[in-house]
């Protein structure tokens, strides 16, 4: 797959379903990254606006958000289905360490 790995972080800013300490730790980890990456206040909102395609086009995709079933469906609903190999990290259930490790690990 061409292009660098795309990383996308959802802050889920309008609900309290992701622990603030998890979001904070993941955001802090990503902020120290010496690479390009994207963040959105709310992936649901971006999907409803059909504005997610540009965030994941090009290379491999890694997303920190919530349940993979939801994330894949949000992209599909917006007309931009994720490739099967897209990696989705779940900040509702995983620790910040697990999320960051999944986002930042070397390409296999």
């Amino acid at each position, binding site marked *: 797959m061409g292009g660098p790995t795309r990383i996308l972080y959802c*802050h889920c*800013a309008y609900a309290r379903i992701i622990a603030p300490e998890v979001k904070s730790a993941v955001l802090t980890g990503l902020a120290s990254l010496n690479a*390009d990456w994207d*963040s959105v*206040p709310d992936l*649901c909102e971006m999907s409803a606006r059909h504005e997610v395609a*540009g965030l994941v086009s090009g290379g491999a995709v890694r997303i920190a958000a919530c349940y993979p*079933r939801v994330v894949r*469906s949000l992209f*599909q609903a917006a007309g931009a289905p994720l490739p099967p190999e897209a990696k989705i990290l779940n900040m509702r259930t995983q620790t910040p360490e697990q999320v960051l490790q999944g986002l930042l690990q070397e390409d296999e």
Partner: protein
Amino acid sequence: MSRLAAPILRVLLYEGPESRPLAAEYRVDLLRTLLERGFPVSCVRSAGQFDALPNSVLLIAGDFEREPPAAGPGVRFQRLSGSDPARTADFADQIRGELALERPGTWKPWFPVIDFARCTNCMQCLSFCLFDVYGVSASGGIEVRNQDNCKTECPACSRVCPEVAIMFPKYRHGPINGEDINTEDVRREGMKVDISALLGGDVYSLLRDRSARAKSRFSKERDDERALKERQNCLVKAGAALGVPAEVLASLPNPEEIRERAEMAQRRARAVLEMNNARFGENSL
């Protein structure tokens, strides 16, 4: 214009060539502040050409070594020199206001998300929803069309879905929140029947009949407060069964309107199913 079609402001936090890196703590605070105010943020460390994405205006912010270019169509610049992230967010807010862009966070994005790996296009959701959230695509498939019509915190349509295919990402519990579905969840056919039995067959009939009874008492007694209480009481059972918040129940239209909307939604669903059956055969979807 729908709020979902209105342009938004995106922020590009630039730390590439010809700019100085931001202090780590300031960078995190700035990111958090912008995200919590509803602005999408891209962090850029590489050189490149940055264009505004469709339907958005781009604010490029960085500690530039030289004077940034003048604002162009769809692109603004801001030199970051202070240490207060709120000032940058205020500036972004100011641009948003000047350009009359959508104010982020004015809508809590609460709407159904369909898991098409499970959906069978049975149109139960289209038939059930009174608020025109669902629509049908040109190819005859169900789709969520009017997300901002959905009633915040109401997950009722997900409970009538026989395939457990409707998710509300911001709901607290699984499988409605998108959690993997386990064998217990797969007693979904029963779930639907249970609701139906509990409510005596048709949820809208129940709402209609009970509201009518409440209305009748109201007309006899001419007691506004009591009538309101009756209406609320009669909806409690349906609300508890479907997880509909009291505010949504209280805001339901009058019984006549409920009947009309429900019949209209059911007609639409029947028409789509008939069309799909004619196009693809009985069991093709």
